[in-house]
């Protein structure tokens, strides 16, 4: 039983990276495809579109930092905490990256039609990023006591 609990703890350590990576893959792919489509319809601003499509990559970075924080000698006492923090923060990072990708795709489409709203169109993506930062920060805070 103890081995199983420790195994869960180890899974929790790697979960933020794996789940964050999956989210970043989905988000960057969605926004990247929108950027490619926008390039077909515009004559300039390609760099901006590609730049926006990279926004959901931050979640994997948060995941890596959480993983390093959780990566401590695993015992039965701290394994459950590592598992809970790792899995739940990873899920939050996954979903935030996937949905941020959709926000970025919409921002690209809107900015293509109205370049003057470029900054404002990024606000929803930035708000979603804010929630990912909340999940990241509090994962760090809690993992200090896990």
């Amino acid at each position: 039983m103890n081995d199983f609990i420790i195994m869960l703890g180890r899974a929790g350590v790697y979960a933020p990276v794996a789940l964050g990576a999956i989210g970043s893959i989905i988000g960057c792919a969605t926004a990247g495809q929108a950027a490619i489509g926008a390039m077909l319809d515009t004559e300039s601003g390609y760099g901006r579109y590609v730049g926006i499509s990279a926004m959901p990559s931050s979640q994997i970075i948060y995941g890596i930092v959480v993983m390093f924080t959780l990566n401590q000698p695993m015992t039965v006492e701290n394994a459950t905490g590592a598992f809970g923090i790792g899995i739940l923060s990873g899920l939050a990072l996954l979903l935030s990256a996937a949905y941020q990708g959709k926000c970025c795709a919409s921002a690209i489409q809107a900015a293509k039609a109205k370049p003057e709203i470029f900054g404002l169109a990024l606000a929803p993506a930035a708000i979603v990023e804010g929630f990912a930062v909340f999940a990241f920060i509090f994962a760090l805070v809690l993992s200090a006591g896990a």
Partner: protein
Amino acid sequence: MDEPRYVTLMSSLPYHGRLFGARQTPLSRFQLDKRLAWLEPEHADTLSRIEHVLRWRRIALGESDAGFLDRADTLVASLTIPLLAEVVRTRLEARTLIAALRKRKAGQSAPGPGERWGYGRWTNVIARHWSDTDFGVQRVFPWVLEADRRLREGDALGVDRLFMEYAWQELGRLGAGHYFDFEAVAIYVLRWDLIDRWTHYDAESARDRIVSLADASLGDYQEMYA
């Protein structure tokens, strides 16, 4: 669920702006068809069949009302995406109302029971309330009185404008929440059709249309005075 190819497709389509502010379509039909080559084959077929029913230019001049209604029934029954079935139904019901207004203005009496003269849920209501100005459907089509007034004043273009505005708004309402999927593509193409129709309202095309209608109705007799 958004399909990856439709994210690219939707982003490659230019913003269509407002219906009545447009002087031309946001992109040519040739360019639009090139982009639509990204559609899944079954989606391309669905969209083509929808356009064949909803786009005036795709409707054969000699097609009977019954033939058209059969085609519309077959199309709606075959659509597996409820939103698109609702799009077709809504448009054809509004057209039925316009047809009723024109028939009444022409002095025709109410359609008899069982007569197939229109499409949708309101044909019986309209027939029952033939003598009412709003056909008893003002709650569903708030613009019916305005359309009737414009028709009585001989403002056929104004009636069409009213109808197209309604169709445009309905597409916006039904398409809400769809951004990067097939439904969004279909809504875009149907809005493109509306812009295309509006921007082709000019004397030249009207003259050509009248000539083609006259030729079609004369049939074999058109050689008589040649």
